């Protein structure tokens, strides 16, 4: 170490646009597997050690459950019961009788149940993680080290972890978390999704995050995707100035989405249930650009919800947006969201299988019931209902959906553009439908042939890729020539700078999760339509996603300097 601070900068993918200054608290790494060696203690001594640690951990989990309350309390109480489970303790006793250490016996007993649950998959598979957590806690207690898991210091902190599991975040005191840094995980990881939902500044996929020690002061800059360790006074002052600016922008009056030259770009919300409708409207959403209907079906258990149940829910949604546009997507099942009553066939490649409109067409009664409920809800309310189909790949499928929607009196029917084939035939597609909405997440997955669910190819899942943007441009151009609206409803629209590029490519509306509205609104106001088109051209000319992002960021900076 030299005398001067070493402010080193690490890079990753920033989520959102926030800036934060804070002190690092690390999530400890998993414990190593206890060695399979014979114990030097007697069987009685090892048995006593195992009992004591299992009991301490059970009492600790019970106490945590009482503090947590709600659904977390149930999970923690169940975990406490797992620690003192009679079947588990039988297996532990058997191993101990053979002369193994308490650590190894505990490890093996939990592992046997864990593998059983993991093999059952689904909900039970997820419980395997709960079991791992209990196992790690007991082994930590036996070996006298701190239990792995989320830290709980008594001051606000920047959490540094490999990645966060849903079970970790349930225990996280979000009021104390200033920011998140992970070494693994991409922009669609659980950590990234949590950060977006809760508006927490996060930098994911920071390869060297393990170098950040507990107690280090860091500046996170999500817009730049950087983590600066041991920042200089100037860097801290600069960060604090930007934090203040963002706070000022957050309380700025909510205005309709528009560019610097006044071109209106309505900003809409992505919703997964009618529960978020009011907060979206309060945050200035000018309607809903994507209402996902999957949860209605996933929550209904083994069968589809009734027309009656659906109608009630759609009415609640539409009532929150009187006179405004609400785009509802019909059931998008398959791939990552399987529904047994639609498609229970095992597919080697579900992302390319019977999903979205393909699955609905195979069970047309479900589509017809959903359209009936939607049309009824539309008649009962004053919102402007649009309905679109997911995972459409041909012009013929486009015609099929628009015609069947018309049968039920749906006034505005369109398709999602997620498959490159549909983008490439955009003029024909838009001639056959009332509008198109681009789902950038799937469009990126299919354009780059990179499974969205697979961490090992997460780096390819980047909507800044010029190949993806070129397809967006095809749809934008077809929209302009046919006079039909082209919306964006993927994660891409929530990236303030990419949002400008998408408008330059011809998007007429942008839809995003509610917390992103403020930053995108502020960003659009900085550029004219002409400038947005210039930025789009720069992005299209780049070699790859990183190059496009960097070139557009540099050009945007020059444009802003020219303005001031």
């Amino acid at each position: 170490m030299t005398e001067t601070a070493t402010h080193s900068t690490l890079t990753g993918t920033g989520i959102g646009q926030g800036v934060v200054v804070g002190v690092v608290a690390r999530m400890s790494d998993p414990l190593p597997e206890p060695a399979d060696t014979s114990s030097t203690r007697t069987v009685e001594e090892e048995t006593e050690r195992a009992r004591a640690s299992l009991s301490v951990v059970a009492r600790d989990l019970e106490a945590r459950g009482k503090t947590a309350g709600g659904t977390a309390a149930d999970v923690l109480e169940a975990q406490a019961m797992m620690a003192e489970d009679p079947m588990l303790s039988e297996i532990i006793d058997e191993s101990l009788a053979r002369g193994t250490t308490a650590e190894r016996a505990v490890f093996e007993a939990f592992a046997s149940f864990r593998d059983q649950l993991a093999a059952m998959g689904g909900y039970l598979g997820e419980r395997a993680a709960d079991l791992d957590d209990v196992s790690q806690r007991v082994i930590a207690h036996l070996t006298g080290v701190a239990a792995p898991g989320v830290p709980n210091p008594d001051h606000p902190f920047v959490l540094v972890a490999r990645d966060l599991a849903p079970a970790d975040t349930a225990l996280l005191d979000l009021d104390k978390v200033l920011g998140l840094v992970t070494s693994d995980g991409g922009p669609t990881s659980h950590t990234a999704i949590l950060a977006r939902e809760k508006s927490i500044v996060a930098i994911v996929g920071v390869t060297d995050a393990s170098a950040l020690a507990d107690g280090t002061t860091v500046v996170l800059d999500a817009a730049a995707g950087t983590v600066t360790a041991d920042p200089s006074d100037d860097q801290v002052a600069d960060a604090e100035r930007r934090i203040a600016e963002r706070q000022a922008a957050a309380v700025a009056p909510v205005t309709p989405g528009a560019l610097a030259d006044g071109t209106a770009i309505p900003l809409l919300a992505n919703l997964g249930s009618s529960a978020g409708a009011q907060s979206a409207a309060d945050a200035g959403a000018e309607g809903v650009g994507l209402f996902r209907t999957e949860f209605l079906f996933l929550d209904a258990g083994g069968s589809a919800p009734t027309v009656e149940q659906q109608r009630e829910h759609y009415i609640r949604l539409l009532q929150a947006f009187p006179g405004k546009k609400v785009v509802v997507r019909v059931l998008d099942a398959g791939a990552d969201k399987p529904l047994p009553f639609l498609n229970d066939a095992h597919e080697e490649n579900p992302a390319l299988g019977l999903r979205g409109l393909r699955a609905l067409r195979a069970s047309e009664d479900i589509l017809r019931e959903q359209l009936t409920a939607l049309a009824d809800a539309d008649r009962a309310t004053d919102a402007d209902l649009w309905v679109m189909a997911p995972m459409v790949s041909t012009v013929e499928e486009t015609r099929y959906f628009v015609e069947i929607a018309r049968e039920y009196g749906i006034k505005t029917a369109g398709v999602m553009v997620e498959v490159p084939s549909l983008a490439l035939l955009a003029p024909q597609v838009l001639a056959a439908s009332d509008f198109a909405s681009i789902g950038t997440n799937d469009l990126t997955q299919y354009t780059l042939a990179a499974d969205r669910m697979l961490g090992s190819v997460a780096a390819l899942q980047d909507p800044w890729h010029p190949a993806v943007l070129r397809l967006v441009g095809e749809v934008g151009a077809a929209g302009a020539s046919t006079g039909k609206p082209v919306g964006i409803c993927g994660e891409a629209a929530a990236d303030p700078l990419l949002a400008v590029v998408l408008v330059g490519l011809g998007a007429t509306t942008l839809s995003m999760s509610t917390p992103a509205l403020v930053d995108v609104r502020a960003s659009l106001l900085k550029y004219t339509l002409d400038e947005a088109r210039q930025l789009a051209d720069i992005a299209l000319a780049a070699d790859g996603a990183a190059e496009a992002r960097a070139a557009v960021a540099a050009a945007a900076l020059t444009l802003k300097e020219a303005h001031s």
Partner: protein
Amino acid sequence: MVERTVRIGSSHGLHARPAKLFTQAAAASGLPVTIAKGSGKPVNASSILGVISLGVDFGDYVTLNADGDNADTVLDQLVELLVTDHDE
């Protein structure tokens, strides 16, 4: 030896909260109680790990077995828990 066969009423099956409530009640009864799914192997009903790993879903049939003085009363209470939907 007393035996009862019932159909699971919890819409999410015998997982999570219903499994916890059931095992707690079985353990509190003080009697040796076993539970089996369909014609499968019975497990200790006071073991949450045993009960969860049966993978019992809504509508599945399970068979309870108990031995002891008030086995009838204990099984009646446990059956009540199993047929109730705790997830509504």
